[in-house]
């Protein structure tokens, strides 16, 4: 299971990309913003694509009563996520090493993948809850209180995935480099599972 163990190790190490690259990216373009404003969501916090984007998004959002974009210290997620990801990397590498030396079964690789998938889904769920809160918990003294055609108050939840027109803004929300790295890493751990299975059988 040398090959499978190596693949498992590489796959889990790819998650380290999350400490360097953004997980998600939301871009906001408008007629007056030909160069769109944007935010990159990292596991440690949210940063502007350009130096002053966060400040400028907050400045615009205050008209419709949205809260400011949270700083790293304002959300527990930004201290917990790095620990969880770090732990999963360590766990994956340990499983991979043990697999490499034949100490554990290839099934552990799949086990890691399932655990990571569950954590990932929980993360997405949590992210979506934040988007809902951010887009709907509006200041009652907001400068502009807009209503939908049916009379309900307009809310501004950005899409979790994809494009949405919101007032004068075109909002695009898509996975970024970090997400592609986890995806690739997780796929590699599945590959490791099958390679391990093959290697075990052929032994």
């Amino acid at each position: 299971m040398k090959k499978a163990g190596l693949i498992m190790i590489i796959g889990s190490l790819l998650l380290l990309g999350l400490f360097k690259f953004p997980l998600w990216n939301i871009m906001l373009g408008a007629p007056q913003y030909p160069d769109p404003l944007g935010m990159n969501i990292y596991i440690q916090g949210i940063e502007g694509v350009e130096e002053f984007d966060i400040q400028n998004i907050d400045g615009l959002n205050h008209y419709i009563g949205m809260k400011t974009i949270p700083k790293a210290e304002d959300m527990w997620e930004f201290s917990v996520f790095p620990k969880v990801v770090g732990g999963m990397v360590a766990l994956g590498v340990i499983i991979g090493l043990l697999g490499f030396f034949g100490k554990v079964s290839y099934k552990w690789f799949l086990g890691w993948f399932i655990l990571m998938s569950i954590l990932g889904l929980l993360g997405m769920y949590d992210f979506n809850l934040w988007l809902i809160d951010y887009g709907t918990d509006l200041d009652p003294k907001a400068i502009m209180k807009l209503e939908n055609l049916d009379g309900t108050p307009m809310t501004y939840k950005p899409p979790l995935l994809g494009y949405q027109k919101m007032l004068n803004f075109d909002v695009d929300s898509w996975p970024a480099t970090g997400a592609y790295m986890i995806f690739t890493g997780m796929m590699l751990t599945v590959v490791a599972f099958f390679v391990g299975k093959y290697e075990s059988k052929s032994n």
Partner: protein
Amino acid sequence: MKKSINIAIALVMAAGMVSCNDSGKQNGKKGSQGGLSTNAAERVYVAPGEHDEYYGFFSGGYTGNLTVYGLPSGRMLKEIPVFSQFPTNGYGYTEETTPMLNTSFGFVPWDDSHHPDISQTNGELDGRWIFINGNNTPRIARIGLESFKTEEIIEIPNSAGNHSSSFITENTEYVVAGTRFSVPVPQRDMSINEYKGQFKGALTFINVDQETGRMGIKFQLMMPGFNYDLSHPGRDKSHGWFFFTTYNTEEAHTLLEVNASQNDKDFIAAVNWKKIEEYVNNGGGKKVPANYAHNIMDENTHTATSTMIKEVLTVDPLDVPGAVYFLPTPKSPHGCDVDPTGEYIIGNGKLSADLTVHSFTKMIDAIENKKFDGEAYGIPILNFEDILAGVVKQPGLGPLHTEFDNKGNAYTTFFISSEVVKWKVGTWEVLDRQPVFYSVGHGMIPGGNSRKPFGDYFVAMNKITKDRYLPTGPEMEHSAQLFDINGDKMELLLDFPTHGEPHYAAGIPAEIVAPKSKKIYKLADNKHPYASLSNSDVRVERNGKEVHVYMNMIRSHFNPDNIEGIKVGDKVYFHVTNLEQDFDVPHGFAVIGANTAELLVMPGATETLTWEPKKVGVWPIYCTDFCSALHQEMQGYVRVSPADSDIELSWSLGED
């Protein structure tokens, strides 16, 4: 005899005017047909949202400023205030910018700006800075091409009519400022008719720090009392020399139109500045008392300072043998232009029918072999025949200026015959001529006075507008005309009005300048002593009758927006910081009854408006730049109480 010559010249000029009016009508019509048949419209059309290929920086003439145009569209992009107060943004009115207009004559709110020149490296445009001269109260300004703002102005002592300026050497070592009017040096009370032999013409070499662009006068060459009209540096092989046209070598002091037109030949003064630089670096020259202003805008404090300098180094040309020669040039030459190779020096004899071209190689040979034809005030005059490269025969009447393309051609403007003439450098053959409407002064090809011209367009800056646009009363803008010069023949593409009276202009490919253009000033770099960078800095302080308001603004409010405790007789300084860090979100600030201009504050900057309230009452302030959907709400009130009131200062935002 003299009188009859003058009458003859007058007749020639009149004939030129009449014939140009005739041809004007014909060609005006032909021009519009030509536009349809040659898709001229398409070639100057820059589609919505697209950008021009070139920046054109046009001097503002009597606006004292510099205007920026896009070429080929001819659209005006900006007016940059330089030597004149500019109420549009408060330049020359605010506490921060008034020092920029300080001179040894005190605050001078206006000038006459003539010749912009873009900085160069190895003789090619590098787009770091653009320099321009103030003609009336001699000054040179440096404008940064990241902020498009005037960053520095230096006054030129011992000068008057700073016209043969501001031209730069090919690595921007020096920006050169020559005096058009010779004056007594030092200035003193003397009879005007003692001019001859007494007055001096100062040619000033200002060195430029390559990192910061800061200017400082290296030396002033004190020349005989002629009029130094225009100049250009040697380039490539002639790098190290500078050439100045002169007129009034007669040294007349009255009725110059006659008395300064008597000599058959005036001079181009050839100055070996490298030789003088070496002389000065070895301790040469004489320090003399002077008094001139050096004004610098600090980008971090957003504030200008003015320093008076009390001494200047002068050089007597006779003390540096071999540094200065006179090249005889017919008929009161105006423009002094050097071709891209540096070999040919063109004297545009404005009262001549021919163009005289001197050869740099022959000039050096004549100097080495002492082919002199006398001297003037001890300065050797080179023999005309020995330095002559050639003559462009009868190209037109009243040649003024010559620019160059990248294919070895020259383009000379003719004021009297109102045309641009293209000729071949080296063969002196006339290749093409096009009428212009009317009476062109300078012409400009982007890079056309450098080693690397960009030969796409020629812009004629015309002195007479007349009927080219819808009439707007007796006073009109000037008219520029854009020619495509890619083909064998020049093609007129576009007329466009220009602001003020452009003399010279400088063009540069947009790609050199545009990527560096600043969008905002960073608040983190704002070191203005009265900035309020956050709401905790907001306050109002009294110091006797002076009140300082530390105010900031962001979409869409002022902080504070209610102020009480101001009294009649106070002098209130509104120090207003724009907290925005977003591109193109300036805020304005105006207060009722202020005897000054508004503030237009760019994101991250701080500016100060001074207000001396004269009436008791509650007076509004408001934002003058439509900044946001809530712009109309961006307002506030200042309560002004009687002088003897004991109401304490207070300020607030958002409190009931």
